[in-house]
């Protein structure tokens, strides 16, 4: 039996120039499974806060379609970014730069899953939800990956919209429309994204510089980035409490929102103060880790209150 030797471009290491096809886990890795889990979770919360009912099988298939759509956009992102992934330690082991899967295979895989996921969501739920999923995929793969990422320091600010859309898609699945609840969740994820990623970018600034990615620490400098992390955190803390004011976040959510919001501000001030050596690295990684915990706790509280009968109103 024979195999066609593939070439995937001049900018990749020699290991990536030939491939006889990857192993099954390599294709799964192209879908960014950890991001898929986060997308399923936030879309589920978007469904939970919606005033409506969805047949469980319809809801489950819709979540699967949303997750596969998110995975497809991750796959297209890896296809486009293979050259810069190869020069960054965090991403050099991804299937394309590691030479396990060719660029063409990833492109075909990503395009197929994009179309299939949108089609399935449209047939399962409704075409508003499917349209939003298609918009999310295009926004992440084209607007963020192909344009913003290499063009502006505001890349992850604007590109964060793609990661913030799953709750909106979730609500569209249940109600066939977009409501204020999912838009607030969109805003929370959107404002949460910059301080979360810039904390990581602060300690990976050298790698981003080597890859030619204009992240905020490389363009505006670490000092400005630290100040912006604080400003975003100061804005995020009260924004995280809007669900309480609008009546779909209860006492449990309020407690987590207040303590978590104060934690975000405290961690951001720690980042602002610790500017050198190990202390700088610890502060940035602390901010990065706590931001994940904060968002997960906020959304878990909403899910618990709306789906498991734990909702107790704060106001009356």
């Amino acid at each position, binding site marked *: 039996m*024979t*195999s*066609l*030797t593939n070439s995937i471009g001049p900018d990749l290491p020699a290991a990536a120039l030939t491939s006889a*096809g*990857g192993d099954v886990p390599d*294709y799964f890795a192209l879908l960014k499974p950890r991001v898929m889990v986060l997308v399923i979770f936030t879309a589920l919360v978007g469904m939970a806060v919606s005033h409506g009912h969805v047949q469980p*099988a*319809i809801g489950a298939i819709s979540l699967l379609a949303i997750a596969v759509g998110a995975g497809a956009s991750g796959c297209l992102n890896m296809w486009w970014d293979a050259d810069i992934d190869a020069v960054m330690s965090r991403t050099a082991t991804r299937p394309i730069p590691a030479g396990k899967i060719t660029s063409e295979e990833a492109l075909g895989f990503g395009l197929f899953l994009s179309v299939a996921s949108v089609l399935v969501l449209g047939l399962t739920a409704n075409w508003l939800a499917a349209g939003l999923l298609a918009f999310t995929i295009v926004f992440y793969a084209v607007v963020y990956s192909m344009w913003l990422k290499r063009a502006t320091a505001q890349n992850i600010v604007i590109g964060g919209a793609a990661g913030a859309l799953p709750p909106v898609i979730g609500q569209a699945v249940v109600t066939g429309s977009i409501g204020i609840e999912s838009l607030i969740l969109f805003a929370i994820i959107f404002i949460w994204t910059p301080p979360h990623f810039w904390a990581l970018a602060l300690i990976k600034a050298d790698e981003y510089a080597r890859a030619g990615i204009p992240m905020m620490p490389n363009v505006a400098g670490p000092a400005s980035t630290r100040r912006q992390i604080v400003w975003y955190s100061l804005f995020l803390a009260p924004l995280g409490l809007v669900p309480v004011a609008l009546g779909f976040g209860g006492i449990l959510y309020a407690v987590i929102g207040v303590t978590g919001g104060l934690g975000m501000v405290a961690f951001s001030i720690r980042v602002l103060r610790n500017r050198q050596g190990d202390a700088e690295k610890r502060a940035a990684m602390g901010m990065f880790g706590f931001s994940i915990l904060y968002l997960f706790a906020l959304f878990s509280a909403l899910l618990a209150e709306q789906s498991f009968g734990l909702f107790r109103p704060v106001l009356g």
Partner: protein
Amino acid sequence: MADPQIQYRPLTPEEEARRRKRSVAIALALGAWVLLFFVLTIVKLGPQILSRPL
């Protein structure tokens, strides 16, 4: 006519094993795809699936 620019080589046993696993995964995915549309049809149409006009 074969393109002289394209070079072919035999697959190693490891590559053949990987290809077999990929084929199985594709078969399972296709089966899941069919099952998904079957479930979707039953759920969307419900009992009406048996009472359609002939």
